[in-house]
């Protein structure tokens, strides 16, 4: 048992809410004693730890990965003009843009559509694995990583926005048409799934690893 000096703002030792017998409502933030099952303010369910968090993370992550495969192999945008008919995948589009000299746009698309999703997959997997292995390394950095992943995930939708806008704008019947391909839906699903995966992750688990009394 550690001793706290409440007069001092800096804790001299850490004790988790769980160890203190307290449960914070994840919805409204009200702190309850651990004997409550539901929040007295918002009637939300009180859980000291989300026991199925890692399961959900893995499930959403796998779903996102499954959706990410067709998102990259199928065409995301179908461009049909009077004399030409062109399908472009994400990577193909990036290569085309790079080839035509639009390095900036190519970089943006590449980062938003490839780097970020892939990075997310890796980051979430790392977080989930580290929690499972009860890693005690750099919990602060991991928590920061989680926040970054959760913040940045929505920006991957930039590709979907481009396709949606182009599809809406360029509809000239036989002259020129741009239609979203199968990959657009897949990609959007993939992004949604990874965002859900990030959301499902319970960051409190990061700090539980070095505690032996955790029932897990």
């Amino acid at each position, binding site marked *: *048992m550690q001793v*706290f000096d*409440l007069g001092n703002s800096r804790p001299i030792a850490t004790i988790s809410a*769980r*160890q*203190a*017998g*307290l449960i914070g409502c994840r919805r409204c933030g009200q702190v309850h*004693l*651990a*004997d*409550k*099952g539901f929040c007295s303010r918002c009637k939300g369910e009180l859980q*000291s730890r989300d*026991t*199925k968090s890692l*399961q*959900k993370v893995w*499930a*959403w992550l*796998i*779903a996102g990965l*499954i*959706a990410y*495969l*067709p998102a990259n192999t199928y065409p995301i945008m179908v461009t049909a003009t*009077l*004399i030409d*008919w062109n399908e472009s995948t994400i990577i193909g589009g990036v290569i085309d843009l790079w080839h035509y000299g639009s390095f900036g746009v190519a970089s943006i698309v590449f980062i938003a559509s490839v780097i970020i999703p892939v990075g997310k997959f890796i980051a979430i997997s790392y977080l989930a694995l580290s929690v499972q292995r009860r890693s005690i390394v750099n919990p602060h950095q991991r928590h920061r990583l989680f926040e970054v992943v959760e913040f940045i995930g929505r920006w991957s939708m930039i590709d979907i926005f481009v396709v949606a806008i182009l599809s809406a704008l360029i509809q000239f019947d036989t002259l020129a048409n741009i239609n979203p391909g199968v990959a657009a839906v897949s990609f959007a*699903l993939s992004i949604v*799934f990874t965002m859900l995966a990030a959301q*499902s992750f319970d960051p409190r688990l990061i700090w539980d690893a070095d505690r032996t009394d955790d*029932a897990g």
Partner: protein
Amino acid sequence: MPDEQDFKPAQMTITSGGQRSWQRISLVWLVPLAALIISLAIAWQNFQAQGQLITISFKNTSGITANETVIKFRDVTVGKVEKVNFANSLSEVIVTARIDKDVAPYLDEDAKFWVVRPDVSVRGITGLDTVLSGVYIEGSWDANITLPTTEFFGLQTPPLVRAGQEGITIHLRADDGGALTEGAPILHKGIQVGYLEKPELSFDGNSVIVAAFVEAPYDKRITSNTRFWDTSGFSINLDASGLSLNVESLASLIEGGIAFDTVISGGTKLREGTVFDIFFDEQTARSSLFSTPNQELLNLSILFDESVSGLTAGADVRFQGIRIGSVKDLSAFVVSEEADQDVQLRTNIEIEPGRLGLGETATPEMALSFLEVLIEQGLRARMATGNILSGSLQIELITVENAPPETLLVTDYSFPIIPTTTSNISDVSATADGILQRVSDLPIEELMSGAIEMMDSFERLANEGALREAPQSLNALLNDARRLINSEDVQTIPVDVNNVIDSALQVLENMDSAVNDVQVVAATTQDVIKSDISDNLSVLTQDIRSVVADVGKIVADTNDADLVGQITKALASATQTVDNIEAATKQLPAITNQVEALIAKANALEIQALVESANDTIISMNALIGSDDTAALPAAAISALNEMEVVLAEIRAGGAIENVNVALSSASQAAKAIEDAVIDLPALSSRASRLVSQTQAVIESYGDRSRFSAEMSGTLRDIQAAADAVTSLARTIQRNPSSLIRGR
């Protein structure tokens, strides 16, 4: 310091997870599961729907792009090219394409593939859509699956016959393939019913064989009796039947073409691949219809002594007017009979036995024996005119009455020889000769001499004096006319008018003096009336007294010498005188009466009427001056001049130059006459003005009075105006007489 107890953790309510394993598993796992199932399902479906890979080898793949070029069947996309690469030998391009699953099973060995490109030909423009969309590969196959295969050879050009197209393929044979091009139309009664395929040399190299496809239902029109002929371009044919020009469709004109027709029914059905001959033209084709092509022909020879010029190979051989064969060839050969050598012209002919009325199965032997009989009865061969224009000849077999007996001569060195008879050639040259003969028979000499005579007569007539004098007479005539114009009568018309005016003036003057006289008389009468007659009487009495005194003196004197008697006598005389005076005095009242009557008469004298008469006269005169005739007088002069001018022009046109001077002098005369006339004009005008002043004076003597004077003054003004006009005309003419001559 807070109690340490306060920091004891609260009692944790631990709700354990589900005891069973499925309760420990999150429902979220369903999401990746569903995603996996869907993905696998799509992958499986894609794999299932994936078509069959085929390879097509092309010599030329211009425009074919991997993953873009599509394969179409009946204009529906059924596949896509996936890969384009070379065959091992680099001689061909292998196109790998994926054909839709539902179509792939029908691809068998008869499937054809070709590249559709824009094509512009006489028959139209095809494949225009490929200009924009790029080329595509068109495939053609039927619904019968024979031997499925995946390797095909692409065609260089689209096949004319698509698989599944109904029709019949036949083969046509021609001596010359120049007019046959691939794709050329086959026409039946002008409608395209099929195509020619690529012409190829026959195996023996003697002819050209071309496969032709005739579409259904027109293929039913083709039987063994069908004849094909060449309609390439146009043909002008001048033969025994005259001149004929044949042109088929425009396409066939440029591209060539084959037409066919079946005239006789009863032909047998065709087998696929039957070979037909292509005839040179329609006529040949049609006439060949009456023979069975493969029938054996009877070869005969004819020896003509005459020239066979005009007879050509192919000319008709006619029997009783019906064509039974044709001339095969003409040759000359030397007949040597020892010393006597002669050149004979041999004509070989072919006769179709079937045409002789011996039935279709007749053989040449049967025909020969038949002809033998006929020749013994007088059948002979002769040349006859086929076409009078071209002068072509044909051979006729006719029966000659009472012909010297001849037989069909069968020799070893030639075909059987038919005896001949005199030819019946009525050619153009003979006819032309006849026409020329008739022309030469015409009496041209007489005609010429008659014509010469006639010309002589004309010449004589022309040389005759009378005719020569004709211009002079004409000239004289003109001169007469000129003289007439210049004659006094005509010239004096204005003078006469002047005279008339003068007369009128004189009348007026006379009238004036008469009026004056009347006035004098009146005055005198008044004086007479005013003076006392008694004064006169007293004077008279004094005179008488003086007379008496004188008488007394005389009496005294007389007394001196016998006076008494004389006095007595004188008295008596005096008495007598007195008596006379008395008588005279007695007569005075009568005189007075007479004077009075005279005065009365003078009073009663119709001055008014007189003035009116004068007025009338003046009006008449005015009318005369104002009349069109008078007004037209200068115009008449002008027109006379114009006429003269016309005459001059005519004379000039007549070319009688010597007359021109005369005419000119006449013209100057006329001008002079006109001048004379014009000189009269001022006199006329002055007279007119004088008349006017006189008339004015007359009128003034009557004073201003009523309407009459107004009218009178108006009339006078008119007259004045007329006079002015005449004056100005006269001045103009005086100033510029030449203008009058020139008619301006």
